[in-house]
């Protein structure tokens, strides 16, 4: 922690960057911090409560942050993948951002509602994304801080969810998703918090032609979520920000995790923090599996 704070202070003092985006203790739990003054660097923290993917703040839409100047950003492994994704898709340039990686021992599934200071990761509260994480020590960084903590426990709560859904009949799955999507109010929070939803004009906002109705009707909700998942195939880094932000608690993580599985299994691509690895949906192979083609 001290190492991180000192590094941030130094970067700001030397004017290498104008803002360090990290985590701090807020009035109700951990939250993103924007440190612009070296004297405030002591506010920075990193622990398992730091669930947020800060890479979202690097999206081109975040004009009010870009205005501050050059950014240094604190990333866990999963966030580093999002930074790599933004570089890969030419949304940001590598030189324009200072990446401060932290070695990560896993994070919570949900930020605790009450301002608990210390948490132990358990099978019940650990994020499902941490299971088998290969990026606990990110490779994309300008600076890396911290000791590598022990491996986190594996989520017992959510690990089997996808298999469970796959076991259902198609009609049951249809019913399951119809129920989930019936709650959607199309507030688009899922898109806005997603680091990889960086389109300057989302297809769902286009009116000519209007592919996806803007009203939260069952049909439009389903079309929107289907489309977003397709666009996220090979992009999604699995940070689960969308699920966390959803005011209606739709389990969007089930979809992102499922699609990530499909992309891995079919094209051998896992989200990674190496920007030079090409995006799978832009790639082709002559020998892709085509068992679904009749």
């Amino acid at each position, binding site marked *: 922690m001290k190492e991180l704070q000192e590094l941030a202070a130094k970067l700001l003092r030397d004017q290498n960057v104008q803002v360090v985006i990290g985590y701090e203790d807020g009035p109700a739990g951990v939250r993103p911090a924007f440190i612009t003054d070296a004297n405030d660097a002591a506010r920075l923290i990193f622990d398992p409560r730091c669930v947020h993917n800060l890479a979202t703040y690097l999206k081109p839409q975040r*004009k009010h942050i870009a205005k501050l100047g050059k950014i240094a950003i604190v990333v866990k492994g999963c966030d580093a993948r999002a930074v790599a994704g933004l570089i890969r898709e030419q949304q940001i340039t590598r030189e324009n951002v200072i990446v401060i990686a932290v070695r990560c021992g896993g994070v919570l599934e949900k930020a605790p509602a009450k301002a608990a200071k210390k948490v132990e990761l358990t099978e019940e509260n650990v994020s499902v994304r941490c299971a088998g994480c290969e990026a606990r020590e990110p490779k994309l960084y300008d600076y890396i801080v911290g000791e590598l903590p022990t491996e986190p426990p594996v989520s017992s709560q959510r690990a089997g969810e996808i298999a469970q859904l796959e076991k259902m009949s198609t009609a049951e799955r249809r019913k399951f998703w119809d129920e989930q999507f019936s709650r959607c109010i199309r507030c688009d929070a899922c898109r806005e918090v997603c680091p990889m939803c960086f389109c300057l004009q989302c297809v769902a906002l286009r009116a000519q032609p209007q592919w996806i109705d803007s009203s939260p009707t069952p049909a439009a909700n389903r079309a929107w979520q289907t489309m977003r998942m397709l666009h996220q195939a090979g992009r999604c880094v699995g940070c689960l920000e969308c699920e966390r932000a959803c005011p209606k608690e739709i389990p969007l993580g089930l979809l992102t995790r499922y699609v990530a599985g499909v992309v891995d299994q079919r094209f051998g691509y896992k989200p990674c923090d190496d920007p030079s690895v090409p995006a799978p949906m832009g790639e082709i192979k002559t020998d892709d599996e085509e068992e679904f083609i009749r």
Partner: protein
Amino acid sequence: MTNEFLSHASLSSLIAELVATGTRVIAPVQTEDSPDRLEYKPVCSLADAALAAGQPRLSLKELFLPSTEVLLSYRQTKEGVEIREVPTQARPQVILGALPCDAAALEIVDKVMSWDSKDELWLGRREATTIVSILCPVEDSNCFCTAVGVGPDSVRGSDVFLTPVEGGYLAEACTLKGQSLLEGRTADHADPEAIAEAEKAQSAARKKVQENAPAIPAGFSAWLTENFGHPVWNTMALRCHGCGACASVCPTCHCFDIVDEHENATEGVRRRNWDSCQTAKFTLHSSGHNPRPSQSERFRQRIEHKFSVYPRRFGEMLCTGCGRCSRICPGGMNLVEIVGGLISLSASNSGGAGQ
């Protein structure tokens, strides 16, 4: 109004009779997946309701301003267009166990829905609804209802206000609607012990919220108006994602969009949907110009609307201090902190800098 005693049994039979006669009864209920999470939902009996068990995740807004509703339907014919209007009369309903902040919100939004021209869709539903509120157990440190002139024991917007006491509730009929709901259900006079118990609970709840935030000073709205150009707006919203989740869960955010949707080549509907000032498209002109181009301006709009624009026009703040926005915010924005910060800024430079 006098406080009267309403026993559990009496309330229970009231609910049963209402349900039997076709009145929809809405109350906070525990969700299937977690007993800590509550939602306002239709119930069949008092036993289904979780009264004063905490704050439902979403407010009552959706019952009066649905996230999407049809305004009219149209059909293209050879002669032109036929339009059919939606009826504005609504089904009678009783909301049991509404939190005071949610009830007050309805009365506040009534003002914008009925000034100048009347929004019959909202008002029709309001008319058909009787609201039975209950003393709020106070959720957590994000609550600040007392700071905005509401309170855990506030009767604003309520037809009946309940305070749990031994064996039942102390019921206060706040309106004629409430009086007729309670007619013949209550023991005429509550005994002094029950009244003392209720008063104690009310002041304890009030004290609990007051500790979270001081009351917003009278000059705050004017300060906000004067300091529209203050540099603080540029830095305060940095962590805001512009997702609008705050507006979705807010009991008083009422902005909407009107869109047409085809159903097929000749028929379709015009709908009204929730909208949020936190999104870029909210104010985007078709020319591409956007008067609020970045999150700083959009965030300012939300705060200004709640604490300056609305008070100037309608005489009260567009906020009931429920704290839902702070709880939902994926970026950790906190309204108690934001408003507190602005208030201390206004105290330190009440001259109106930065215009």
